[in-house]
């Protein structure tokens, strides 16, 4: 018959711990951690690395986190620090030549909407099946099996198609 389940509990407001008197840095940290993390995530693409790189960035920046520095200056400083940490990671882990590690050329990099703009730019010039496989895999998070089923191809074909699409998109040029 009728079963009314109790539904989801509304997410409670996050409790911000009261800061010690000398802890100006924490206010600065909390004001900047989300944009830094977002930026780092677009350059690492996974939570584990995004958390590590964000942590390292703030640990390094800790002595410089002061409330009397302007927001813009702090943002620029944190961005530069994050970029250094990212470049180290790409260099150490994937032996990427330093001059090929993505440079930030536009201030828009800090715009949270930016990732989406990039996607449109990237997908625009691709053949429909390439576009589709990238949408399913990256934007919808389908597994290879689910992707294969959605495209009506074998798992092996889906794997190959995904790699070709990604390489083709990459060859079109870096998103700006």
């Amino acid at each position, binding site marked *: *018959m*009728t*079963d*009314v*389940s109790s*539904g*989801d509990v509304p*997410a409670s407001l*996050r409790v911000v*711990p009261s800061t*010690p008197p000398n802890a100006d*840095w*924490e206010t600065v*940290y*909390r004001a900047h*951690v*989300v944009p830094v*993390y*977002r930026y780092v*995530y*677009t*350059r690492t*693409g*996974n*939570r*584990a690395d*995004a*958390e*590590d790189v*964000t*942590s*390292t960035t703030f*640990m390094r920046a800790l002595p410089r986190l002061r409330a009397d520095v302007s927001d813009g200056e702090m943002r620029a400083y944190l961005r530069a620090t994050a970029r250094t940490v990212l470049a180290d990671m*790409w260099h150490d*882990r*994937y*032996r990427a030549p330093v001059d*090929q590690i993505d440079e930030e050329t536009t201030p828009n990099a800090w715009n949270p909407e930016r*990732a*989406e703009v990039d*996607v449109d730019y*990237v997908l625009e010039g691709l053949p429909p099946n390439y576009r589709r496989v*990238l*949408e399913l*895999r*990256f*934007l*919808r*998070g389908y*597994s290879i099996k*689910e992707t294969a089923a959605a495209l009506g191809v074998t798992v092996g074909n889906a*794997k190959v198609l*995904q*790699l070709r699409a*990604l*390489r083709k998109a*990459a*060859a079109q040029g*870096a*998103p700006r």
Partner: protein
Amino acid sequence: MSRTDRRLHRYIDALLKERKPRPGEAGDDLRAMQLAARLHAAHPGSAEPSADFIDGLARRMRQGEDDSAAAVPMPQRRRFLAAAGLAAAAGVGAGFGIDRLAEGRTSPSGQQQPLLPTEAGWIPVARVADLQLGQIQRFSANGIEGFVLNVGGRISALSAVCTDQGCILKADTAGSRLNCPCHYATFNLDGTPRTGTYKYGLTPLPVIQVRMNGANVEALLPQTT
């Protein structure tokens, strides 16, 4: 697949599982790897740090801990999969509702459809008193999985089955949206898919008709015999 193919595939797989990819020379695939990270970052919500992480890092900074060795354990998106599978199975059993949804899935840019059962009755699905302003309640009645919502004083109901793969959505009251635990779909409280990456052809959630009857909110649902 060649060795470089397998390596790039493993890299993509790690990203989608929110894990650190294994080390290895990027070679000619450097741009493709960077692009994969950007693409994966582009779905709504993925690039948001968790409250646990933010608080945990503040704590470590306070303790002056060095480096990120004591990383905060992170919730894995994959742990939702077992539950999501069940939800999908439950959705398949939801009779006529699923026909509608399946139809919706095959026409990607489909319009929002009301659920119109052929043999229907008004079934109580929530108590008016329990449905405060802004509240969202899940119900499960006569084979239909749904939400009853109080949006700005207006009571409405929606199917709770994601129009992508049939998983049961989770209400995010604070964010005023319905999230799919399986992939990255999110819906507004009127059932329309949220803009973002899912604008690529996701069908809106079917609307379920409701009425107030005394202390109860009743929904027009198929009769079960």
